[in-house]
């Protein structure tokens, strides 16, 4: 009796294993061809910065590089760097395969000429535009959203280094420990925790330091810094009044989420010559209409993707925001698409962000902003305007 049971169980066990193998194989195979990547091929990286003034100028820098399959050991490796979490990280050799998990990191990598080494980006990374194409062509893998990474994908790419963001809870508590357990090197950057341009420079320098491209970083920083200082300088020379600015992350119906004084956007507003009405708060407060009306902003900036202007206008009409000076003066701006990305991502385009905001806040000094993805609300009070002219 006992041996019968044992034989029976063993047979059932084998059947179970067989079913598991067959079933699993088909289940796995049906998932498509996320096959493990081989080494990347030469890629031309184009970094483009759009500066809009009264005449549109594009400044293009083209870098073509080829990766070498043998790793050059410079006397500077191994080196130790300190990342944004304060961890000391030992870099044994120059990392060749990079995974970026946040759009701003992707921009920074490309700006430093490291774009060709990227093997994986998050699904929201879309700048420079070639990132989108490279992803489509399969030359760069999509590793999921910044908050919903696919660790398996990341591992299959055999990266030498994975960049994560400080302040992103799942990066710090979930993904980094697991990736480290699998032996992958993770480096944290400040990303959205950046408070001003110097934090962005810190990130750029940190990345450059890992790849011995400090000179590239320094020249990039110099360029950005000059542009920023130009704006600051211009504002200083003119004795201007600083208008109250309200920035809303999303239309009012998403909640009146604004940016507090210790955020990057607030720094942008202040540097562009405005006063962020939410600056007395820290973090990302939700305001109420009473407060907004008491501050009576003269300019309202709304960042959102996928909202159209007439929809927004209708919505605003119904809210107390239509009683602000911004509404009366018609100074309500909707930033969508790329414009929204530029303003919300502390990265190499902060100078462009500052440029945009300075044109919005002080068009009398910097000129009007003319971009397809920045729309000014049309408040129709034609008769009065005509008369005024």
């Amino acid at each position: 009796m006992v041996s019968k049971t044992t034989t029976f169980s063993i047979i059932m066990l084998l059947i179970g294993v067989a079913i598991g193998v067959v079933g699993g194989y088909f289940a796995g195979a049906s998932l498509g061809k996320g096959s493990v990547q081989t080494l990347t091929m030469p890629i031309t990286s184009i970094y483009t910065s759009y500066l809009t003034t009264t005449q549109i100028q594009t400044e293009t820098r083209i870098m073509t590089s080829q990766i070498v399959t043998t790793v050059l050991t410079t006397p500077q490796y191994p080196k130790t760097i300190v990342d944004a979490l304060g961890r000391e990280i030992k870099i044994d050799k120059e990392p060749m395969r990079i995974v970026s998990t946040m759009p701003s990191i992707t921009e920074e990598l490309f700006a430093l000429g490291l774009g060709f080494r990227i093997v994986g980006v998050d699904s929201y990374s879309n700048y420079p535009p070639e990132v989108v194409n490279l992803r489509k062509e399969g030359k760069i893998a999509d590793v999921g959203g910044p908050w919903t990474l696919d660790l398996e994908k990341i591992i299959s790419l055999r990266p030498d280094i994975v960049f994560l963001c400080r302040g992103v809870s799942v990066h710090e508590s979930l993904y980094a420990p697991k990736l480290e357990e699998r032996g992958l090197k993770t480096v944290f950057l400040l990303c959205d925790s950046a408070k001003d341009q110097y934090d962005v420079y810190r990130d750029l320098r940190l990345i450059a330091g890992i790849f011995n491209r400090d000179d590239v970083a320094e020249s990039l920083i110099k360029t950005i810094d000059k542009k920023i200082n130009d704006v600051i300088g211009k504002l200083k020379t003119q004795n201007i009044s600083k208008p109250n600015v309200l920035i809303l992350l999303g239309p009012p119906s998403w909640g009146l989420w604004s940016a507090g004084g210790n955020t990057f956007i607030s720094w942008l507003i202040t540097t562009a010559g405005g006063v962020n009405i939410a600056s007395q708060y820290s973090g990302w407060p939700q305001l109420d209409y009473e407060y907004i009306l008491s501050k009576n902003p003269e300019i309202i900036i709304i960042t959102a993707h996928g909202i159209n202007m007439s929809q927004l206008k209708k919505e605003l009409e119904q809210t107390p925001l239509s009683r602000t000076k911004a509404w009366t003066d018609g100074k309500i701006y909707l930033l969508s698409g790329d414009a929204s990305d530029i303003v919300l991502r502390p990265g190499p385009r902060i100078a462009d962000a500052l440029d945009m905001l300075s044109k919005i806040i002080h068009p009398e000094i910097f000129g009007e902003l003319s971009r397809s993805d920045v729309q000014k609300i049309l408040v129709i009070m034609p008769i009065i305007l005509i008369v005024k002219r």
Partner: protein
Amino acid sequence: MAEKIYYKGVKRFVFSLMILMILSITLFISSLFVGSSSINLYKIVHMLSNIFLNKNSLYNDPMMNILDLRISRGIAAYFTGFALGLAGLLIQTVTRNPLADPYILGLSTSSLAFVSLSILLFPDIMIFRWNLVLIAFLGALTGFFITIGLSKLAGGSSVAIVLSGIAVGSFFGGVSHLLLYLVQARYNIYIMYLLTGTAQTVLWRELPYLIYPSIAGVIISLLIYKMLNAYLYGDIYSRQLGFPPGVTRTISLVITSILTAVTISIVGIIGFIGLASPHITRFLVGNDHRFTIVLSPLVGGVLTLFSDISVRIISYAYGAELPLGVITMMIGSPFLAFLIIKRLRE
């Protein structure tokens, strides 16, 4: 007549046990194949023979790493269901309520509240996963103790436990909502993800804390199966049969709370498994705890592992990793509705 019925029951148990064990192995092996990358069979065999090597380093072959990821994930998912299956069974017995689940003791929301509070006070704590796990665990137990204390004030009966659990759970639910909002507003940290449950990021060194208490829980529960059986029929019945109901309650609740707290802190809040596994088990083998204590964890393990495999498939299609806790609830809600209707009909 009685022997016929009895041995029929025993046979059903043996049969169910075998099916569940086979299902467990089948699912586990299938899970090795499922993920966003494709892996071939040879690698899997090779991997399994080297399974306990080098837990903390990169294998030369990324496929090995991926396999390692899938194995740890599969084990985490399975034993989460295993623990919740037992916890759910015990809580349903203790409260004499077939619709109870382990979270009615107020553990999940108190855990969430504690984690949010600690992040609010020390935002850097997120870096130290081990600390967060510990805080989540202590938070869960705190909620449990408050519930028990409250229930004792209310007389200590099974009804008192349920009501106290609801009160404590709601209180901490409100508190954690507030705290989550504050954390979001202050630091722009969205931490719901931390507790909606995922098996993907469970570390190997955390798995023993999931596995050993679960197995210990099954063994201890089996030892007191008679107390549990007697307890079903009332406090008076249990006592006059020689088993003080308070002892049964204490032992069961300790096991339930520890197992639930462990799953919350390591994997997150996985709904429905604690409710459904005992139901399915009772449907298979009836109410004798000799059988249900053994089977309910297995049912839970199978359900959760299956859900995790589904998560991998859905996430691949959708492009982003979905939380396990959400999928189990989605699969579960229709089943729960069916159960409620069936029960009310009778």
